[in-house]
């Protein structure tokens, strides 16, 4: 009888099926990630590279000539008084808006979560500023803060204080804009905190009560605050980014004035790029702006990420 020849392996040539399987899996992975990678490259990576490239030129919109100038734009920034003022103003604005909007957002979330009546009403009311169009609301703020006909100063007059020209005085304008910024950010932060609060296991509060954490203050520091860590980190991050990006209120209400007292980064970039059409120079500012944001984020996550995630 003839011996039966068994086929020696599935496909000829593939000496190692495991390696082949790994390769095909890696390929499938890239194929699945492909659309996202392509879009990211097209919409974020390429424009960023383009901005960096433009920042090294003297390109101006409307002129045909374009010249490579190296780091000249950046050197010019160092002596640009407007840019430096704008940098300082943005910093001040962020330092006021971020802590206030985070603290007030958390406070509002805690109050709403504390089982009061009209929870849905308060949630909606606090969230309204987020959905309202800031450009439209700017008019309202202009009226509210008007030195003579504004209700704010009218109230102050009732208690015998002569209110300042909130949006017109160089001492108060940044403060007023920061106030509007807080007004707008609180609702958003509150919603994020509310989501964070509902994710805290109820049993932890029960355990805290049994463990003699008798007051709300004790339970806040024992359970709520540490458990909100990841949410707080996220809220602070978002708040900083939004504060650094302040533009709408400046552009609609003050246009950087009076006397550059409300000049902020995005407004300055906008002026250089779209009013004076100095695209190269504006690009250099943009790169600095992006750099600041990235450094802030990296610092924040390096410093805090390990301390807010416990598992």
């Amino acid at each position, binding site marked *: 009888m003839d011996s039966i020849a068994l086929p020696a392996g599935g496909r000829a040539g593939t000496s190692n099926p495991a390696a082949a399987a790994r390769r095909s899996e890696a390929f499938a992975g890239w194929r699945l990630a492909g659309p996202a990678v392509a879009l990211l490259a097209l919409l974020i990576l390429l424009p960023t590279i383009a901005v960096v490239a433009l920042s090294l030129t003297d390109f101006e919109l409307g002129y045909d000539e374009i010249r490579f100038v190296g780091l000249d734009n950046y050197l010019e920034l160092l002596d640009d008084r407007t840019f430096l003022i704008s940098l300082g103003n943005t910093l001040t604005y962020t330092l006021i808006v971020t802590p206030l909007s985070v603290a007030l957002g958390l406070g509002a979330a805690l109050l709403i979560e504390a089982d009061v009546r009209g929870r849905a009403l308060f949630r909606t009311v606090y969230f309204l500023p987020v959905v309202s169009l800031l450009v439209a609301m700017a008019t309202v703020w202009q009226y509210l803060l008007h030195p003579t006909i504004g209700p704010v100063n009218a109230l102050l007059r009732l208690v015998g204080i002569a209110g300042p020209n909130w949006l017109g005085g160089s001492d108060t304008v940044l403060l007023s804009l920061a106030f509007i910024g807080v007004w707008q950010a609180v609702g958003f932060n509150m919603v994020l905190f509310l989501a964070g609060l509902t994710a805290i*296991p109820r049993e932890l509060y*029960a355990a805290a009560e049994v463990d003699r*954490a*008798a007051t709300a203050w004790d339970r806040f520091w024992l359970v709520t605050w540490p458990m909100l860590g990841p949410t707080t980190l996220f809220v602070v991050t978002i708040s900083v980014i939004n504060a650094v990006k302040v533009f709408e209120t400046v552009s609609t209400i003050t246009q950087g004035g009076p006397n550059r007292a409300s000049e902020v980064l995005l407004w300055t970039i906008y002026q250089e790029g779209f009013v004076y059409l100095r695209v190269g120079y504006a690009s250099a500012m943009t790169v600095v702006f992006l750099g600041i944001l990235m450094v802030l984020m990296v610092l924040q996550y390096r410093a805090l990420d390990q301390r807010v995630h416990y598992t």
Partner: protein
Amino acid sequence: MSGLALRGISKAYGDNHILRDVTIEAQPGEFVALVGPSGCGKTTLLRIAAGLDHADRGSVWLGERDMTAMRPSERDIAMVFQSYALYPHLTAGQNIAVPLAMRDLTIWQRLPGIGNLMPSQRGIRADIQRRVLETARSLRIDHLLDRKPGQMSGGQRQRVALGRALVRSPAAFLMDEPLSNLDANLRVHTRAEIVELHRRAGVTTLYVTHDQAEALSMADRVAVMIGGRLLQFDTPEGIYSNPAHIEVARFIGSPQINLLNGEVDAAHGVRIGGRLLAEGVNARPGTSVTVGFRPEAIKLGAPEQAGLIASVRRIEFLGSETLVFIDLAGGGDTLVAKLAPSDATAFALGQAVTIMAASRDVLVFGGDGARLSVSPPMRMVANG
């Protein structure tokens, strides 16, 4: 040491009655298990004892102290939660220290940073550290004190939760299914450890479980709750061999008790399909009753012996014992008998057998589920 008493507790959410007039009094140092199927209200009862929920009616007493209106933090009661409820941002040691820090340090001394400047806190903190270590040693978790809950196994977390409850020597312990998240081996092991801990500490303990084996093996007394009512509160032996209600008989025991429908005849005997099973039952002639006997109470005999006639349907060998499932002749009822494996070898599938039980092992329940007394003590049942 003081006892823990729940008196006349009722609780309802709208029309949904969770608890109906439940009274449980645990003697000082007693280990009481609350057992029942899920949704029977046992966890709610425990939360009421802790002060985390409030009863609509009834009172909670610790010794001579009426705690009904007290907050959980004032009750001097420790609780172990089913999920353990450890603070995930604190290490095991810090978790165990929380109740002591809350009790012994003032609000200013507890403030991070500033608290360290407060006078006399150093001594208190050292004392807390010492007692945390002591507790951790007794639970053999002293090597885990620097780990966070996320870095520990379920069994280790469970010990930390026990430690947090033990450390402040409370007047009473409440445990809410503390073993249900452990794997089977660890569960049996930890069962023994908790009993041992209780024996050493001697603290009155209320232990909620849905696992009857846990309740029977650990507790001094077992409270069986079904549908928001306390059906029986007795020693494990009493609960098992002398159930007061058909639901108790059904819930306790594995495999389940065998139940057959019968009728009381004119001579106060109970008959199933015309055969006399028991005599002297305290019920009116003609009433329907349910007769129950435990799987281990059943004796199987050769077909020519007196008894209920049946045939073997399935045999399950379980190592230390063998379960024999038998179909009753003329009815759809299937009974299960628990035999020693050596005794079970005499039977084969499809074989005809007779079923017998000693009269003291036969339980008779009335139509409302309540146990009926039988007098005089029954003779051997199923004669012919």
